[in-house]
Structure formats: structure tokens, C-alpha cells
């Protein structure tokens, strides 16, 4: 019954992993073979992912898993396994496909790098770890791969390790996400303790199935929130979003991978995967944990969109837009729109990869300039990049009809509008739509329109190895919209396990006009403000204080540096100090007492006043003399004290007994 691929699903991550290990072991530092190996590995993974996708189409809500024992401690087996269901299958295809485009693009982008091979090894490893997260049927296995994703991102963000800023950014990413992971780790322990298993699906005994959920009971809220803290770290949600923009220090393909297919998607995926824990005991689809998810998402989405308006680095704008979009997905999950959230995640994977490698193409063309204020007028010299970028921009902004991201965003708005607890998230999300259109318009104008400024003087279109992936991703972005429209919500039905029906009438809904109006407002506002933008930002001129506030990322980094980080750093220094002076001080003081005692007895002894003391200390002194050959003076006195103490204790024993 179960197809071949179910038992061999592990091959999907294993193939890129093997490619990575082969490259690390055998490839020279700049071998073309390394790139070929990585791309072939990713291609095989894509084929396997498609093979895994096919059986999930059999019937709505199809699911298969394969569990086995990892190890046995005492009398207890720790079991892990993998699962294939629509959620996993859709993610597999997206990750491998988007990943493949990015791999190919990297061949061109990294061609000059002296650690070319290692880059591809890391990329393959990154992809493997993320694929592992997606197929894991055990929270433990998921956590293992999750941490490996963290490691891969650390290696790739810090890939240009000779740059101190890259090394610092890598460290920051690892540590910030680890803070979230500590909570996640706790959630795992708690869940394991209360349900007795970490398997998601296990013929009714898994922790996401009825029996497991029953055992978890009321603690589900806490467990869900702890797990969510891991997602907050990985998916760059407020307050742990600070690492994500800094992650731009990595090479651009890495940014594309982190922001589209891997890493940040992991958090949203995680929440979707363990959703039964979040929704356990829901009244009207609302639980305390889901409410937290909604509000974290809302705050993140708006804050990031605001910050994006005042950034000058082309990649940072996109980074904040990712943070903002992830917030939107979290809102969707929180209000109960799991399928909508994942749909947006999938669509986002395509268009964000498109935007990032588009920005990579721009950066490449402008000789590694990142500042959009120094670009301009690129639409003529880089037509392919311009057109594909425009597709990405319109998708992200939510221009309706042809662009998948617009449909999925609308679906999210639709879900948010029906949240029973409050209408506020809905209206705030609408504001987010305007802001998104605004900052993307700003970026388009600065980069592609107007005069060609300094960095754009000698710009050139990128080679085909870089533009082809752009075209593929742009087409993918548009093609995906076929299955996400309300007229034929096939993807939605597929993810939520329902049959899909075609109904053209549903295409036109009130929400369509609302979002159309808002997007038009955002773009119009953008055109109005930035149409004559030069090296100086119009917003900066009219609202310098506000601009400064947003440009400096609301001073959140500075806030952390002066509170949490300063506090822990002080604690570290204090720990060291206490060690040297207090704890060791006690030891030394104790030693000095012994020494003083020794000197005292020595004095008494030498004068020969007390024969009894003389006799008692004599033996100790004998040993002391021998040992004092090793060391001048101290041992003798210590041992004198030891001997006296021994005697006293023995007497004490005798007295007690």
C-alpha cells in the first residue's frame, strides 16, 4: 500500500547531505565539480520531492509515516521517524525547487570566490538540514535538524569570515536563535514528560494525536508557547528579530536561501506542524497560545514594515520585508488560517528568493554596492533583472490577479477579518499592506528609475547563469497563482485535506477590492513621495526624527546592548571575579588559618614548653620536612593543621560513638 518513497523519504535530505560531505572531503577549494555535485544533489532531491508529492494527491488529507527506534536508554526506547503529508510534501517541493534556482545562481555569483567549493558544501548542508526539519515525524528529530539549520546559517552568514562584521553577524544569529531554542528545548522536555512520546504520528499514540493530546491536557498552552519561542527565534519574530537583518552580511545567495526556502520558514512550519498543541481546547478557534501568536505576528509585521521604509541597503529592505511577511504568516496561523499561512509561506519562498537573487543581480551589476541611494535608472541596463524584480515587487506588495503572493495575502486578510476575539489585527494588517506597497515602491524607484547615480554608472546585466534562475522563479511565482485563487483554491484544499472545487464566481470578492484599493494607495503614495527622490530621502527631509528612529531600527539593538547583553556580560565578569576573590578567597583564608596555626604550634614547639604538643606535632613535622623539600615552607604548616584536625575528628567520633 505505502509507496516506495514513504520508506525512503530519508533520501531527500540524505542526498544533499552526502553531496556536502563529498565536497568537503574531496573537492579542491575552487572546483567547478563542487558546484556540479551540489546542483546534482539538489536536483535528485527535487526529483525525490516530486515523487513524494505525487502520492499525497491520492486523497485529501493523505498521510504516511515511518518510525524506528533511535536508541534505548534504560528500558525506554526513543523513537524517531519521518512523515509524509501535504504539509511536508509541499514544503519539500518548494525548498528543493527554490534551492535549486539559488544554487544555480550561486555558480555565477560566487564564481570569483576563493572558497567556492566550501560555499556549495555549506549550501547543500543547509538544504539537507531544512529538508530534515520538514520530514521529521518527531519533535526530537525536528529539533536536531533545526539546530543543524542554525549551524548551517552560522557557517554561511559568516562565510566571508575575514570580515569582522560577518563573523559578528554569524555569532549574533546563532546566539539569538539559541535563546529561542532554549525555550523550544524546554517545550520538548515538557511535552516528552507529559505525553511520553515525541512522535507526531504513531497510529493514534503520537503526541499530536488524540491520546497524546489527552495526556498533555492543560499544560498544552505552556508547551505550545515554549515551542513558539523557538519559532520566534528562527523566524525572526519580535523580540528576537534582531539577527535577521544582520544576516545580510552573508553572500546574497545565502540571504535568498535563509529568507526564502530555509531557516526562517522553519519557524512558521514548526507552528503549523505542532498546530494541534496550539489549538487544543480551543473555544471558537481561540486559545491563549494562539492569541499570543497573533499579537507577536502583528507587532512584528508592522514594526518591520515601518523600519523597512527607512533603510538604504537594498538587502536590508528585503530582510525587513521578510520579517514583516513572517509576522503576517504568524497572524494567519494564530487566527486559525493554517493553510493560508503555509500557502503564503510557499508563495513567499518563491517571490522572496526571486527578490533576493534579483537584488544579488543588482549588487553584482553595481560592483557590490548595496546602497540604493547610489543606484538608479537600472531598468535600461538590466532589463531582465528589472522585469523579474518587478514581478517580485508586485507579488510582495499584493497587486491582485496574476501574482500568487497577492492571493495568499488576501486569504490571510480574509481569515484575520473573521477572528472572533478582536478586529484590531485585521485593521493593523491592512495598514501593513499599505506600508509594504510603499517601501517596495520606494525601492523600485531608487533602484530602477530616475537618474543613474554613482554606482549605476558602469552597471551591466548579469550573465545568463544568474538571469535564468530569476526567470524561472518569476514564472514560478506567477504560475503558482493558478492554484491559490479563491476560484480554484486547490492548494488551500490540499493543505487542509479537503477536496477542491472550481467556482469562478468566488474569484471576485469584496476583499479583492479592499486590497486593490490599499495596494493602489501604497504604490500611489510611494510614487508621490519618491518620484523625485535623489541621494536624499524625502521622508528624511520632512520627518528627520521619525526617519532617524526607523533608520536605526527603533534602537532595539541598542536597547538590548544596554540591558540584557550588558547585564549578562557584567554577570560573566562578576562570576570570574567572585571565583578569583571570594570562593578562592575562602580557600586561601582557610589556608592562612592553617598556616597561622602551624606557625603558632611551631613557636610553642620550639620553646619546648609543652611536651604533649611537641609529640603531637612532631610526626607531622617529620612529614612536613620531607614535603618541604618539594615546596618551601607551606606544606609543613598545612599538614600540621591536617594532623591536628584528624586527631580532633577521631576524638570526636569516639566521643559520639
Amino acid at each position, binding site marked *: 500500500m505505502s509507496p516506495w518513497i514513504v520508506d525512503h523519504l530519508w533520501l531527500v535530505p540524505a542526498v544533499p547531505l552526502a553531496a556536502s560531505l563529498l565536497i568537503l572531503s574531496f573537492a579542491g577549494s575552487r572546483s567547478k565539480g563542487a558546484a556540479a555535485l551540489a546542483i546534482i544533489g539538489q536536483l535528485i532531491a527535487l526529483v525525490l520531492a516530486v515523487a513524494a508529492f505525487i502520492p499525497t494527491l491520492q486523497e485529501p488529507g493523505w498521510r504516511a509515516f515511518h518510525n524506528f527506534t533511535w536508541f534505548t536508554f*534504560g528500558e525506554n526506547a526513543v523513537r524517531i521517524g519521518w512523515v509524509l503529508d501535504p504539509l511536508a510534501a509541499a514544503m519539500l517541493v518548494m525548498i528543493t525547487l527554490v534551492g535549486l534556482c539559488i544554487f544555480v545562481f550561486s555558480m555565477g555569483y560566487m564564481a570569483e570566490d576563493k572558497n567556492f567549493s566550501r560555499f556549495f558544501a555549506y549550501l547543500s548542508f543547509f538544504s539537507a538540514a531544512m529538508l530534515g526539519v520538514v520530514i521529521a515525524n518527531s519533535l526530537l528529530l525536528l529539533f536536531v535538524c533545526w539546530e543543524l539549520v542554525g*549551524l548551517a546559517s552560522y557557517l554561511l552568514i559568516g562565510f566571508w569570515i575575514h570580515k569582522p562584521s560577518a563573523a559578528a553577524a554569524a555569532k549574533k544569529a546563532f*546566539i539569538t536563535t539559541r535563546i529561542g531554542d532554549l525555550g523550544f*528545548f524546554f517545550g520538548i522536555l515538557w511535552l516528552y514528560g507529559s505525553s511520553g512520546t515525541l512522535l507526531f504520528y504513531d497510529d493514534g499514540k503520537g503526541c499530536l494525536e488524540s491520546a497524546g493530546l489527552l495526556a498533555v491536557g492543560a499544560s498544552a498552552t505552556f508547551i505550545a508557547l515554549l515551542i513558539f519561542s523557538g519559532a520566534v527565534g528562527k523566524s525572526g519574530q519580535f523580540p528576537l528579530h534582531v539577527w535577521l537583518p544582520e544576516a545580510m552580511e552573508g553572500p546574497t545567495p545565502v540571504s535568498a536561501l535563509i529568507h526564502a526556502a530555509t531557516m526562517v520558514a522553519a519557524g512558521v512550519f514548526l507552528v503549523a506542524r505542532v498546530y494541534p498543541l496550539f489549538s487544543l481546547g480551543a473555544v471558537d478557534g481561540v486559545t491563549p497560545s494562539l492569541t499570543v501568536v497573533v499579537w507577536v505576528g502583528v507587532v512584528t509585521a508592522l514594526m518591520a514594515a515601518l523600519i523597512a521604509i527607512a533603510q538604504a541597503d537594498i538587502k536590508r529592505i528585503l530582510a525587513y520585508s521578510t520579517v514583516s511577511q513572517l509576522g503576517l504568516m504568524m497572524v494567519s496561523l494564530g487566527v486559525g488560517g493554517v493553510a493560508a499561512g503555509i500557502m503564503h509561506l510557499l508563495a513567499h519562498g518563491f517571490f522572496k528568493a526571486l527578490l533576493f537573487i534579483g537584488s544579488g543581480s543588482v549588487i553584482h551589476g553595481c560592483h557590490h554596492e548595496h546602497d540604493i541611494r547610489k543606484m538608479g535608472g537600472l531598468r535600461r541596463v538590466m532589463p531582465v533583472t528589472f522585469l523579474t524584480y518587478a514581478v517580485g515587487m508586485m507579488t510582495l506588495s499584493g497587486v491582485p490577479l496574476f501574482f500568487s503572493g497577492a492571493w495568499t495575502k488576501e486569504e490571510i486578510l480574509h481569515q484575520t477579518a473573521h477572528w472572533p476575539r478582536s478586529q484590531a489585527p485585521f485593521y493593523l494588517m491592512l495598514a501593513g499592506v499599505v506600508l509594504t506597497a510603499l517601501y517596495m515602491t520606494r525601492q523600485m524607484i531608487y533602484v530602477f528609475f530616475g537618474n543613474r547615480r554613482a554606482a549605476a554608472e558602469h552597471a551591466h546585466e548579469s550573465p545568463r547563469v544568474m538571469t535564468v534562475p530569476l526567470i524561472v522563479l518569476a514564472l514560478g511565482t506567477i504560475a503558482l497563482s493558478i492554484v491559490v485563487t479563491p476560484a480554484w483554491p486547490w492548494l488551500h484544499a490540499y493543505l487542509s485535506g479537503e477536496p477542491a472545487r472550481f467556482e469562478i464566481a468566488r474569484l471576485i470578492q469584496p476583499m479583492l477590492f479592499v486590497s486593490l484599493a490599499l495596494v493602489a494607495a501604497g504604490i500611489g503614495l510611494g510614487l508621490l513621495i519618491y518620484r523625485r527622490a535623489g541621494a536624499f530621502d524625502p521622508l528624511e527631509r520632512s520627518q528627520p526624527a521619525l526617519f532617524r528612529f526607523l533608520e536605526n531600527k527603533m534602537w532595539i539593538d541598542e536597547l538590548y546592548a544596554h540591558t540584557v547583553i550588558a547585564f549578562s556580560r557584567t554577570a*560573566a565578569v562578576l562570576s570570574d571575579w567572585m*571565583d578569583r576573590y571570594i570562593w578562592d578567597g575562602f580557600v586561601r583564608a582557610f589556608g592562612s588559618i592553617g598556616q597561622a596555626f602551624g606557625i603558632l604550634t611551631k613557636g610553642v614547639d620550639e620553646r619546648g614548653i609543652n611536651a604533649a604538643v611537641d609529640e603531637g606535632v612532631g610526626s607531622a613535622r617529620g612529614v612536613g620536612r620531607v614535603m618541604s623539600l618539594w615546596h618551601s615552607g607551606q606544606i609543613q604548616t598545612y599538614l600540621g593543621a591536617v594532623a591536628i584536625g584528624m586527631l580532633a575528628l577521631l576524638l570526636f567520633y569516639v566521643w559520639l*560513638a
Partner: protein
Amino acid sequence: MAGLISALILLPLAGALFAGMARENYARGIALFFNAITAILAVTLWRNFDITAAGLQIVERHAWIPAIGAEYVVGIDGLSLLLVLLTSLIFPFAFLAQRRGRGYCALMLVMQSALYGTFTAHNFVLWFLFYEMSLIPAFLLIKIWGGENRDRAATKFFIYTFLGSVAMLLSFLGIYFAKGTFDFAALAELGRAGPLLNGNLAWLAFAGIFLGLAVKVPLFPFHTWLPDAYETAPVGVSMVLTGVLSKMGVYGFVRLLLPLFPHEIRILGPWLLGLAVCSIVFASLAAWAQSDLKRMVAYLSINHLGYCMIGLFAVTASAARPAVEMQAALSGVFLQIFNHGITAAALFYYVGLLEQRRGLRGLGDFGGLMQRTPLLCGWMSVAMFSSLGLPALNGFIGEFLIFKGSFALAAAATSIAVLGLLFTAIAFLRAMQMLFSGPLSESCSAFPDLLRTEKWIVVPVTLLMFAIGIAPQFLFNIFNTTVIQMARLFA
């Protein structure tokens, strides 16, 4: 198979004799030769060990000094075997790490013999003999071949641990006077049946043994000898100190203190857990503040042994004790003992490599090494990530199980202890940043990358880390039966 364990104990002593009389240049070869034999013996022991049988195996028992209840009893259970294997693994590693003369090799071999004895003896007098026998070579090795401040560090190390030993000896004398036996198994049975001693006497005896072992592990706040000693000791000795010697304390807790004083431990439970938490958190924080690489690794050793201690205290100190959680914590502790042995020894080895090349080992003395010595950096990073508990490497599973068990048994303490995982990561990432990244420092520009001989050492150790991280069952098999048995004992 009788005599196998005795042979294991005696062989290094014979080796010490040969190495001590050999020419300077041959001493290390002889030491390695004897280590090859002990390794074969240890593996033979492993093969003859019945993993399904509870209790001691391959026991040898001879009358020794009947008048004082001293008996020559050696035997192994899962925990003993694990530690014997660890010893057989770390010593060759340590000998390979440094080329040294005959005095050094002879003393190391004496220490090795003492360690085998400590981990297999099951009578207190015999055990204590070995326990002390390991101390003197360690003292001399630091004292003679140590670095800066070696006199002070060696003296502090010796006096401190010796004081602890004396206290322990006195306590055992007290117990002997009361119960008339030194046999571990018999004492454990007595401890389970009822209090070994009455009233204050019991507390006094407890305090003595606790002090001795807490200093040895070391447990906060009895740890201040450790950073000095580890920092000063020659690399090979540091590897042995952290890899094996520190396990004597943990072993002592498992074998002596916990079975003998269940009542006292339960009363003091929260305090003991507090000490373990302090070990974990303060040591990892202090590691973050160090500027000397070796000292940083030393502090992280304290931190990692703190995880062992929190696991043990959680098992014995809590009120409700589901078997699965106790087994989790105990398995985690045993695994951690082994893992920390390998990883910490490897870290000291790498520190030694860097020190060899640079002559200094301050974090600020290096920079940009990744550009010059990518292999050294890469392999060293593996050890660091293993130490900070990255999954797929050996550190993770042990820590996961310890936290699983202790979270269920002592949630509050565990919630604070988990901070240690964060600070450890910070300390290591900071070190990696300072050593490997940035522009290549002038003083490092002539470094050779890993040499062929160094690769021969590094690769197997790293592969072992991956093996344990990915397929750890072979280690669990060694001690699973013992874990089940101990969980029953403590229940």
C-alpha cells in the same frame, strides 16, 4: 577471564617501570606500547561483559587484610566498564598529544593504573588506595612539567584534594566502626535498608565524603583549584585530568555517596541541586569572561560536570520518582561522563596545538586563523560544537537525557540550569570569533595547518564524536542494565 582486570591494573605499572628505566626518547614509545595492550585488554573486557546481566561481573576476590575488612575485590558493572574504556581511550590520546621524557611517561602510567583501580575496586580500602595513588602522580606532573605558577597551582591542587580525601577517609572509618564492612555492595544494601549511622554521626560522615567528592568533581564552590591546575598542567596532563580524573568524583558520587546516604541527600536535596546549578551557570559565565583559552576550557569542564551533578541530585533528591525519568537522568549522566571525557580532552589537545604554534594561548593572541589553517579551525570547531551540545555530535544526547530526567524530577533547578547551555554557546562562539575570524593576525601568518601526524589523532576522535552523536546505542548497551538496576536502588 579471571585476572583480566588485575592485569589491566598492573600492566601500566609495569609499563611505568620500563618507561622509567628506558632512554628518554623511547619512553613515549613504551608508554604507547603498553597503552595498546591495555586497550586490547579493555576491549576484551567489553567483549566478555554480559550486557544483560545485572550486578558486578568478572569479579576477582582475594583476602587482603581481614583484620580491617580490607579485601581485594575488583569487578565491573556497566559504569565501571564505561570508565575503563574511557581511560583506555584518553591515555593514548594524551600520550600522542605531547612528546615527553621518561619521568613524565612513568608518572602518567602510574596514574593510569590508579584510575583503572579506582574504577574497578569495590572495597573501600582498595578503592581509596587507588584513589590516592592517582593524586600523587598528578601533583608531580603539574609541579615538574607545568607552566607558569606551577608550584602554587600544584600545591593548591594537592592540598585541596588531599584534605577532601582525609575527610572522606575519616568518614569511612566512622562507618566501618559502626557497620564493620568496607564492601561497596554490602554498604549499599545497608544504606538502602536504613540509616548507616545515627544522628549527628551520619551527618558528619556524610559531610566528610561529600567534601572529598565535591572537591574532586569539582562542585561549586569547591572548584577553585581546577582552573589553576588545568591551566598550568602540560596539555597531556590536562587532557587526562579533565577526561578521566574528574570522572572519579562523579563516579564516587554514584558509587558511594548516593547509595549510602539516601536520607541525608533527600533532606539536603534543594541545596545540592542549588550547588549543581551554580556550577553550571557560574562556571559557564566565568568561561565567557576568560581571556586565556585553556582557562576557558577548564571552566567549561566545571560547567559540563555540573550537568552530571544536577542529573544525579535530581535522581536522588526528588520526592516523586518515575522510573523512566530516573533512567533518563542516569543514562544521560553516564553518557555525559563519556562524552565530556572525549570532547574536553580533544579541546585541550587543540589548545595545545595552538599553543605549540604560537607560544601563547590568550584569545587575543590569535586572529583570522581560518585563512591560514582552515583544517585546524574546522576540526577544532567540531569539538567546540560538540561541547556546546550541537545535535548530531556526541554532547547532545547526554545533555538531552539529563535535562529530560531532571526537568521532570526537579523542574525549578533545571529551568535555571538551562541557561548554562546559552552561556556555553556564547563562550565558544566568542572564542571562535576571536581565533578564527577577522583579518589574519601578523603573528599567526606562518602557522602550519594540521600536520599528518596530527590528522591521525584528530580524525578518529572526531569520527567517534559523530558516531556517538548519530548512533549512540553501542554506548547505551554498556550501561543500560546498570542504569535500570541503579534506578531501582535509588527508588
